């Protein structure tokens, strides 16, 4: 009896639920002027106090009961658009929003958009828009997303002028850098002073500091997801800039108006032209430049199908009077197909190619090395209703590692090639974003990743002294070693009130490929190493707790986050190891553990005449290897106790704005000599424990001024003036020790600084 009544009750309930039929309103949100899809734009159903946001392809889908609604479409920097709709069937609604133009100051602040900081199920995330990047003053006036990123809490610069970065105590190879979903293995140009990202080609970027959702994986510390511009689908336009050491040009145009568009962006530096002025013969004959191109095209086949093709090609060239040469560069290509199965189920299929290669030439010898990936991704997004969204999919990557090939023009007997290594990296994931009730939201997911190290190749086993004791040969495609494991992700957001929330997250990441380098700064001489019978996958577990609060009607965003990260199977190279052209490189590695914890404070003002942010990070990062430092924990090189960034942008008028940036951080941990002794006939220094000493603290102020010229018809132009290191602080780049010139037995410490005060000027145009 009882059972029956329950069933009846259930049926009744279902009836009630079904009584009100539900319909879906979906479509794309775009920029009215250029037709660019807007990522993360908000859809808000006023009557229901609910809504959704657009995905990375500008697509949204909201399922609500039939009825009459006022729907607001909004996006920061754009005018909010309201539409009245009577929903009695599923409806497609594409919306174009008008940019408020010049600056963020006129943005109508709508609570629904601006409180995302507090309400979203995201934490440990950094977002910077191209508008902000353009406003921040930088070295040589070259706007750069990676350098702007370094001004955010938890993100540390790899050094003076460097585009390299460290996230929450992770190494630089633990950042997954994606350009239109293609991994970029080395994101630096010109020894790290530029990044590969031309900010004219960038539409959107987002950095996950170690707790990326389940669709991302493969690196421990962070995911930097960069999306390229799609090109103006309304009209042909050209823009560009002329700077002191580089110039750039962008052309964009519709392929078929409102259906497809393309964009091509190119950049070339000419730093070496200045060297031609030098009186030194060898400097005169030095070649040093880079160029890169970003290309993207998209075409909408019909309402439900859209294809994208995007690519990047960059190359750095250095040649010193024919004696030494160094070439390096990345190539990526991405083909994507967006398909809507229904107004609720979205599929993105992606095929990716990525390659990083370099060649070093010294006299008649050349060393060549590369890493190359083919990658297939299937990502489904299912918009169940306004409270539930499911994401699931899989990813397959085929890696080819070419560690080194030496060829000699004059002495063929020197020729040597280290065997390629091959691997297959697979992952499948599912994640669920669930608004349990108006104050409690969760996002949880599970990723399973698998790594197969495969032939052809010779696999060595080593004795304790690094000698080969056994060699096994494997045929092409034959499995050598398999690794795999679950990577759970979990995030909960609890709204304390309309203005504040508490968020907590736990994430596990696995990393199967490792960068082997014996340079502390980015050098471009990178050797990527797969996980093998000897090298195990790296694992990181991160816990983060945050408090988020907005002030003064969301004019100010603030947050405090605490994190703790535990790292396993970290890799370092043995003291004195040779890694270039060494087939036994695995025997030169040591494996250990690490941890990092810290607290990050962030205050940001997004609207008004004055915008900008203030960020402060306190952190501690240590590593432990049995073979180093007697097995004791020691600080990582980039362990920075304090890290402060202050960024301010002030718009005096629509045409004139000024900006300033001040940074301060604790010097790197270094190893100094603390004594001397004599061996053979040589004087040898005795070094302190690993990284037990500190470089001097670093600080610097930059200022910038942007003056927009009066718009003439369609021609817009602006001047940008900037001064790097205004008070000419001599920050230590390296500290070295040498014998005194007039007393060779005595030693002195020498500090080298890179940039004193550097003014620059750039002219930008668009028509």
């Amino acid at each position, binding site marked *: 009896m009882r059972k029956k009544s329950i069933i009846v009750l259930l049926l009744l309930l279902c009836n009630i639920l079904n009584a009100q039929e539900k319909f879906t309103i979906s479509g794309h949100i775009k920029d009215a002027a250029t037709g660019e899809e807007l990522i993360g734009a908000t859809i808000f159903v006023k009557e229901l106090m609910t809504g959704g946001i657009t995905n990375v392809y500008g697509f949204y889908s909201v399922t609500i009961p039939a009825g009459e609604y006022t729907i607001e479409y909004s996006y920061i920097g754009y005018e909010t658009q309201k539409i009245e709709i009577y929903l009695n069937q599923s409806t497609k609604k594409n919306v174009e929003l008008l940019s408020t133009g010049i600056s963020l100051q006129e943005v109508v602040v709508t609570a629904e958009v601006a409180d995302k900081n507090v309400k979203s199920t995201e934490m440990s995330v950094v977002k910077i828009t191209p508008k902000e990047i353009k406003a921040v003053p930088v070295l040589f006036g070259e706007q750069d997303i990676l350098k702007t990123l370094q001004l955010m809490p938890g993100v540390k610069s790899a050094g003076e002028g460097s585009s390299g970065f460290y996230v929450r105590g992770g190494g630089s190879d633990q950042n997954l850098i994606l350009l239109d979903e293609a991994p970029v293995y080395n994101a630096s140009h010109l*020894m790290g*002073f530029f990044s590969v990202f031309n900010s004219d080609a960038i539409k959107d970027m987002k950095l996950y500091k170690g707790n990326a959702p389940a669709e991302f994986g493969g690196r421990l510390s962070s995911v930097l997801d960069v999306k390229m511009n799609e090109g103006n689908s309304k009209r042909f336009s050209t823009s560009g800039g002329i700077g002191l050491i580089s110039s750039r040009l962008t052309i964009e145009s519709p392929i078929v108006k409102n259906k497809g568009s393309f964009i091509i962006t190119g950049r070339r530096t000419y*730093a070496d032209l200045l060297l031609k002025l030098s009186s030194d013969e060898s400097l005169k004959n*030095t070649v*040093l430049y880079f160029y890169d191109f970003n290309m993207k095209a998209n075409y909408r086949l019909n309402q439900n199908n859209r294809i994208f093709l995007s690519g990047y090609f960059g190359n750095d060239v*250095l040649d010193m009077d024919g*004696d*030494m040469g*160094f070439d390096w560069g990345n190539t990526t290509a991405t083909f994507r197909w967006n398909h809507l199965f229904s107004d609720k189920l979205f599929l993105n299929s992606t095929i990716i190619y990525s390659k990083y290669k370099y060649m*070093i030439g*010294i006299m008649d010898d050349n060393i060549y090395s590369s890493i190359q990936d083919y990658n297939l991704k299937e990502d489904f997004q299912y918009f169940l209703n306004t409270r539930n969204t499911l994401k699931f999919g899989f990813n397959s990557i085929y890696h080819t590692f070419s560690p080194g090939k030496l060829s000699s023009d004059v002495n063929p*007997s*020197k020729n*040597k090639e280290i065997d390629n290594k091959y691997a297959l990296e697979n992952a499948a994931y599912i994640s669920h974003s669930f608004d349990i009730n108006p104050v409690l939201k969760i996002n949880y997911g599970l990723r399973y990743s698998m790594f197969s190290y495969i032939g052809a190749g010779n696999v060595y086993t080593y004795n304790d002294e*690094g*000698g*080969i004791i056994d060699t096994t040969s494997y045929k092409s495609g034959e499995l050598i070693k398999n690794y795999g494991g679950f990577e759970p992700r979990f995030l909960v957001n609890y709204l304390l009130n309309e203005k504040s929330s508490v968020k907590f997250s736990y994430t596990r990441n696995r990393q199967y490929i490792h960068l082997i380098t*014996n*340079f*502390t700064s980015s050098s471009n001489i990178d050797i990527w190493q797969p996980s093998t019978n000897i090298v195990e996958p790296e694992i990181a577990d991160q816990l983060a707790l945050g408090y988020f609060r907005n002030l003064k009607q969301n004019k100010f965003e603030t947050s405090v986050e605490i994190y703790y990260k535990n790292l396993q199977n970290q890799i370092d190279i*043995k*003291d*004195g190891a040779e890694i*270039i*052209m060494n087939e036994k490189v695995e025997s030169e590695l040591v494996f250990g553990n690490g941890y990092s914890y810290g607290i990050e404070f962030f205050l940001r003002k997004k609207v008004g005449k004055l915008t900008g942010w203030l960020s402060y990070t306190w952190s501690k990062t240590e590593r432990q290897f049995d073979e180093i430092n007697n097995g004791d924990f020691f600080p990582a090189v980039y362990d920075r106790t304090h890290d402060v960034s202050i960024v301010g942008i002030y718009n005096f008028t629509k045409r004139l704005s000024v900006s300033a940036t001040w940074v301060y951080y604790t010097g790197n941990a*270094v*190893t*100094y*000599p*603390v*004594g*001397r*002794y*004599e*061996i053979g006939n*040589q*004087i*040898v*220094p*005795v*070094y*302190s424990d*690993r990284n037990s*000493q500190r470089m001097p603290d670093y600080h610097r102020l930059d200022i910038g001024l942007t003056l927009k010229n009066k718009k003439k018809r369609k021609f817009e132009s602006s001047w940008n003036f900037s001064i790097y290191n205004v008070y000419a602080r001599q920050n230590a*780049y*390296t*500290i070295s*020790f*040498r014998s005194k010139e007039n*007393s060779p037995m*005595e*030693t*002195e*410490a*020498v*500090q*080298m*600084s*890179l*940039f004193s005060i550097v003014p620059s000027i750039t002219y930008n145009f668009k028509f």
Partner: protein
Amino acid sequence: MNTKYLIIALMLIVLVSCEKVIDIDLSGIEPKIVIEGIITDQQEPYIVKISKTNDYFNSANYPAVTDAMVTISDNVGNHEILTEISDGIYQTSLIQGVSGRTYTLKVIAEGEEYIATSTMQEAVEVDSISYEYMSSNIGPIEQGYKLTCHYDISDYANTYCRFNIYCNSELSSKYYISPQIFDFGIEEAFAIDDSIRIELLVIDKPVHTYLLMLIELTEDKEMTGIPANPTSNISNNALGYFSACTSRSDSIVIQ
């Protein structure tokens, strides 16, 4: 093959750099013991030197460690206590190095005990020495006659060589160890009439690692890699090394 020079050169070109001498407080460490001992398969005596470290900015002499108890033994039962012939210099009189044997050095000084072992490898003969005139200054190599030492090793991967270069009977203070790949080219430049003797020592892997790190420390001072004290094969945190090695040599006069 040294890519480091390239990087240094690059930095010099690219950067508007500026150097200045600074004061750093390098808090002095407790003096540490330094032991250097070599035993070969050539005629004895063999020498063991024991001294101590100094503060980094102190250019005074390095104190010798006297009255230490120094013994060398092998794995077939030979054993000898060394005699101190001058301050900190200890010498053998009986024991003879033989390829294939493992030697143990034991030092008791100032109440502490230090032990090291090293295995004497199979000898490698020097086939010949050749020279060639280099006319221009390229990278780190000076203008002058450049030597190449030719020898034949069957097991490249597991044979480690060290070279002592004597120019007119004077030992070069530079350390040379083989890169394990090619015939060995000496980076120094020599002149006409120089009489050169090259001594080829076959060392074991721990000594090779030690010397490799020592070379990095003494020759690549400007490098950005993390410096570390060479991994010694002597116990108890002593600095220095103990090497049992075979020795063969050949001579040439540049004409």
